[in-house]
């Protein structure tokens, strides 16, 4: 049986490694293209949130490549509509005439373990090893993304960082052995420090907050980090897969966040709604020159907290831009807003940091 899963930015590499090491026969998803989004939107329910449509688009490409089953990780409990993704996607695919099963993995350790065991037949040791290797890859990917955000606006030769990142990710993707990986990691980190930059440059800083899927996948957010870097802005982003995993394992992180945002919101609104408020408060306190909220169209938690974020913006004076993304958003419209926002950010920077 050939399995596939949804594409999600650079993290796809780590997920792919995990499943491969478990011995699952895999048709990895291709990078999300505008064509895939279009095809997915065609058969997905119109009013469902945007990531669901993109996921289906990914599956359709994989099905063409021979995939027979889909693995979908779902959140449990009071999260958001993501917890119905598996079942809705399954139905959308079946209604469109695809005879394919979407297998749901609920994010509770016990259930994941038993499901994985059922699908792959891997031993506990094998699962542990696969998890460790995938996590190592994930950590390196996230580290590189962070470094790239620092380098990009400072690089001497435009585009060098992104080019390097593509090369490095390809290397990380291809390595199948943990020992080999350690070597490659060293090589990558060595090379990335050699990218020529202008260290003396003091730049305006912008924090990227919002819904995790759109924030972390450049194929969905039109490469917003690169776009901002081109305007001479240093981008910071706290949200990544590890952040999400950590919160799943250590629930007290949520309690701490709740305590900090108490004046603005007294309960959860699902998803990472509370995190958005917490992050914006944090960025404002750190003296950032702007905050951008990214959300997929139809995302309930992020739409709910948007007025609160507007309020923080009014109170603290930190420039704020909210961008809702879906299959109908045109890149030119987004570009105009980013350019104008960059101007506002620069004005803030000149006023407070120079």
């Amino acid at each position, binding site marked *: 049986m050939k399995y596939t899963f949804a594409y999600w930015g650079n993290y796809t590499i780590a997920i792919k490694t995990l499943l491969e090491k478990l011995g699952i026969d895999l048709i990895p998803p291709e990078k999300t293209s505008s064509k895939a989004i279009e095809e997915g939107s065609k058969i997905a329910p119109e009013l469902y949130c945007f990531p669901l449509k993109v996921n289906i688009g990914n599956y359709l490409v994989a099905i063409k490549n021979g995939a027979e089953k889909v693995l979908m990780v779902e959140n449990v409990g009071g999260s958001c509509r993501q917890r119905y993704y598996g079942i809705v996607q399954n139905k959308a695919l079946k209604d469109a005439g695809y005879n394919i099963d979407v297998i749901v993995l609920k994010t509770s350790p016990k259930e994941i373990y038993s499901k994985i065991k059922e699908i792959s037949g891997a031993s506990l040791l094998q699962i542990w090893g696969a998890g460790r290797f995938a996590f190592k890859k994930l950590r390196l990917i996230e580290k590189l993304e962070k470094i790239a955000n620092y380098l990009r606006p400072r690089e001497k030769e435009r585009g060098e960082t992104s080019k390097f990142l593509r090369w490095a990710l390809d290397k990380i993707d291809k390595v199948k052995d943990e020992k080999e990986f350690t070597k490659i990691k060293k090589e990558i980190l060595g090379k990335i420090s050699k990218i020529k930059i202008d260290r003396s440059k003091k730049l305006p800083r912008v924090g990227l907050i919002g819904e995790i899927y759109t924030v972390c996948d450049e194929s969905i957010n039109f490469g917003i980090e690169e776009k901002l870097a081109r305007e001479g802005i240093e981008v910071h982003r706290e949200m990544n897969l590890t952040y999400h995993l950590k919160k799943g394992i250590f629930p007290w992180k949520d309690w701490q966040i709740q305590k900090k945002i108490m004046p603005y919101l007294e309960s959860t609104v699902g998803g990472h709604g509370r995190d958005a408020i917490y992050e914006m408060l944090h960025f404002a306190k750190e003296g950032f020159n702007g905050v951008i909220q990214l959300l997929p169209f139809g995302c309930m938690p992020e739409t709910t907290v948007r007025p609160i974020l507007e309020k923080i913006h009014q109170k603290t004076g930190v420039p704020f831009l909210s961008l809702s993304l879906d299959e109908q958003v045109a890149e030119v419209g987004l570009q105009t807003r980013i350019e*104008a926002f960059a101007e506002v950010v620069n004005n803030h920077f000149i006023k407070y940091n120079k």
Partner: protein
Amino acid sequence: METYLGIDVGSISTKFVIINEKNEILHALYFRTEGNPINAVKKGLRILKKELPKNIQINGVGSTGSARQLTGIITGADIIKNEITAHAKGAAFFVPDVRTVIEIGGQDSKIIILENGVAVDFAMNLICAAGTGAFLDAQAFRLKIPIEKFGEIALKSKSPTPIGSRCTIFAESDMIHKQQIGHSVEDIVAGLCQGLVRNFLANIAKGKNIKSPIVFLGGVSENIGMRKAFEETLEEKIIIPKYNTVAGAFGVALIVKEKPPKKTKFFGFEVSEKDIRCTSFQCKGCPNQCEVLEARIEGEVIARWGDRCGKWSS
């Protein structure tokens, strides 16, 4: 004479402004884009060439508007600026202490909040064109009123008819309905203006700190009915400066003049006589499948843009 040229090519109208060293507007053009930005740019350059004195020297060119990229490339502009920055600049020149700029154009509507002459916040319609000029245009056509008369007629109304205006399509059906049950044209037109203002304030200006002085720009600001509706709703005076429809082009001309290039890249007015073509193709290099655009003057490729990785544009 040393001058600077600002070009603003929008979805519905195209604006050209020439300013001199003293920031005085020597010449301003405003005409319809008619769905063809390249032709509109050529037309503007042709008119300017004919109407301007021969001793004029262009020291710098700036382009703005939704077709700013294309315009910048085919004219050889020195600066390509987004329309929000350009309008903020233009408005702050006319009213130095301006705090709020409302700009409603053909398909865009935006609000810009300024402090000490610089933009600190803005909002723009993203997925809905409700309440923009194109809609008023269509309704004027349907009611068989010339769009220039729209405001005048609205002012005649004593009791504006409420028209649902959350969505333009429904506003239109509501309007037809109100017409069919016998409301007068001026009441409907005035109701429409109020509806659009309500829509603008509820959707675009939501959560923004609107403070006086308020400047109203863009094609729709020509409509005195809209101005009155804004004044009534906001209970503030609305300033409509001279050159309200060309403020973007004026703004970008000011921006170029502030940081003038050593030598302008402007191709000259002659480019209007040349054959300019623009085509696009999809790059198959990676899954991004960027739509790459290509501009040619007399068959020669002058620029490619639209790709994310820089394979074509550099």
